[in-house]
């Protein structure tokens, strides 16, 4: 019997909503104009882009002319960091970030280190939280940028962005946040958060892949990242991907208008999942903070087993989830986030990330937990590490 598949990897990507697809469709073949042209087709495209820009601005409390479209969240992160670093090079060469950032930020910072910049990678506490005090202490007279994510993609920890922003404002340092995971999950207001730049991508909130945006507060000095034509007010060249931009606009409007109720639903799923797993499966631990975490995110370590095996077995049961094991990251080390919160390598290898979304139900939660109980005990029976514990 074919059972319904359960997708619980919404932190990786989400299915595009029908309303978003419908909004995008006219901008492929019918209204195909280049937004930079003066005639009717071009004006049509330009209007669509401008409406999407309004929608994005409204969703995060920004002004329309502070929103710049990009091709992805990664591009927004790369641009924010490199663009600010080089535009403010005369002021200093020091950048502050955290050990748990997404690779789009971490690898960009590492690249800058090879180009004469100095980067401080702040540690996090056991929950994955950056301390505002640490940010304050790390700022020196050469610091030009602080970049800390709004919420962590692996363990869901929501960072004290507002407080960090207060500090950077006082010190006159530019503050960027990667809010890729946070949009649609929690209230995002760039003014309340005291941020100067903010990255996002549409596909994490039921919009299209290959869509992204960067908020740049008015007055912030930033160099273009992609040079060429005069699109995006000379800041980001390349013919506008109108359909994708329209999709991003539609998706963010839907995500923010329905957020409160949806987040509550996701939290209920998340908490039931976490509670059941911790209660019913021994040798497990929750990674991240119990309450200061993204509504749909659960990250659990199962001792004595390895994450990829767990994922493959879940997949066979029709469940799609994610892990921080080395074997799933394509590298040899387990997730840098799990190591940064102090997990031992072997425990980090056995982690599971479940990220709930709109399609999930309480029945799904129960089916996942029931499957996990069988799978985890089967893998443990096969594990020489468990044998050692059992025989103690």
């Amino acid at each position, binding site marked *: 019997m074919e059972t319904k598949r359960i997708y619980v990897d919404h932190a990786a990507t989400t299915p595009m909503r029908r309303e978003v697809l419908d909004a995008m469709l006219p901008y492929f073949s019918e209204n195909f104009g280049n937004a930079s042209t003066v005639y009717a087709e071009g004006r049509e495209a330009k209007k669509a882009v401008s409406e999407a820009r309004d929608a994005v601005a409204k969703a995060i409390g920004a002004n329309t002319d502070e929103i710049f479209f990009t091709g992805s969240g990664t591009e927004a992160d790369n641009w924010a960091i490199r663009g600010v670093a080089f535009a403010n090079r005369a002021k200093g060469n020091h950048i502050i970030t955290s050990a748990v950032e997404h690779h789009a930020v971490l690898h960009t910072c590492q690249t800058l280190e090879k180009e004469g910049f100095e980067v401080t990678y702040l540690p996090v506490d056991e929950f994955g939280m950056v301390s505002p005090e640490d940010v304050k202490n790390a700022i020196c007279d050469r610091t030009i940028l602080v970049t800390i994510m709004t919420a962590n993609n692996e363990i869901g920890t929501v960072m004290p962005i507002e407080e960090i922003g207060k500090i950077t404002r006082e010190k006159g340092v530019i503050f960027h946040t990667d809010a890729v995971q946070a949009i649609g999950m929690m209230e995002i207001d760039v003014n309340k958060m005291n941020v100067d730049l903010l990255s996002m991508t549409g596909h994490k909130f039921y919009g299209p892949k290959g869509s992204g945006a960067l908020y740049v507060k008015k007055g912030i000095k930033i160099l273009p990242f992609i040079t060429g034509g005069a699109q995006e007010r000379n800041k980001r060249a390349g013919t506008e991907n109108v359909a994708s931009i329209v999709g991003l606009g539609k998706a963010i409007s839907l995500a923010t208008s329905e957020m409160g109720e949806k987040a509550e639903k996701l939290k209920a799923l998340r908490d039931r999942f976490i509670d059941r797993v911790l209660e019913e499966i021994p040798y497990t631990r929750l990674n991240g903070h119990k309450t200061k975490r993204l509504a749909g995110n659960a990250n659990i370590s199962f001792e*004595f*087993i*390895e*994450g*990829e*095996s767990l994922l*493959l*077995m879940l997949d*066979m049961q029709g469940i799609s989830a994610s892990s921080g*094991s*080395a*074997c799933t990251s*394509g590298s*040899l080390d*387990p997730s840098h986030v799990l190591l940064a919160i102090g997990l*031992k*390598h*072997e425990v980090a*290898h056995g982690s599971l990330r479940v990220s709930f979304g709109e399609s999930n139900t309480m029945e799904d939660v129960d089916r996942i937990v029931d499957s996990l109980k069988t799978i985890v005990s089967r893998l443990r*029976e*096969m*594990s*020489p*590490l*468990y*044998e050692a514990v059992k025989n103690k």
Partner: protein
Amino acid sequence: MYSEKVMDHFSNPRNVGEIEDANAVGQVGNPKCGDIMKIYMKINDETKQIEEVKFKTFGCGAAVATSSMATEMVKGKTIDEALEITNVAVAEALDGLPPVKMHCSNLAQEAIHSAIADYYNRKGIDPTHIVGCNGDCACCHHDHGESEE
């Protein structure tokens, strides 16, 4: 990314378990790297035939599948024949492994060597000239990755 054979051996691994009266036990790998394989054998002292073999593995899909396949391959073989099984042969028997997973097939080969070394060590015979190492494969399992890039 995995062949059907790998998935078959992963989802229905052969020879999982322990042998209580095993006379050859080897463990290789490192929890830090994310894979450990422990292999149990019962070797006939007269014929030097591997009569029984079981394994336990902590690791990814490829680690489990290579453990399963390697135990199938050594079962019934003599020590000399078992020592001839290479990591490439284990990988080929599984219709290949993704390049980043080739180290898992080393693990299986090393586990076999480690168990056979243990067999000789228990008898007070230095296994170095037979197995090619002293059997402390947990230490020499250092070919993890870097060379594969």
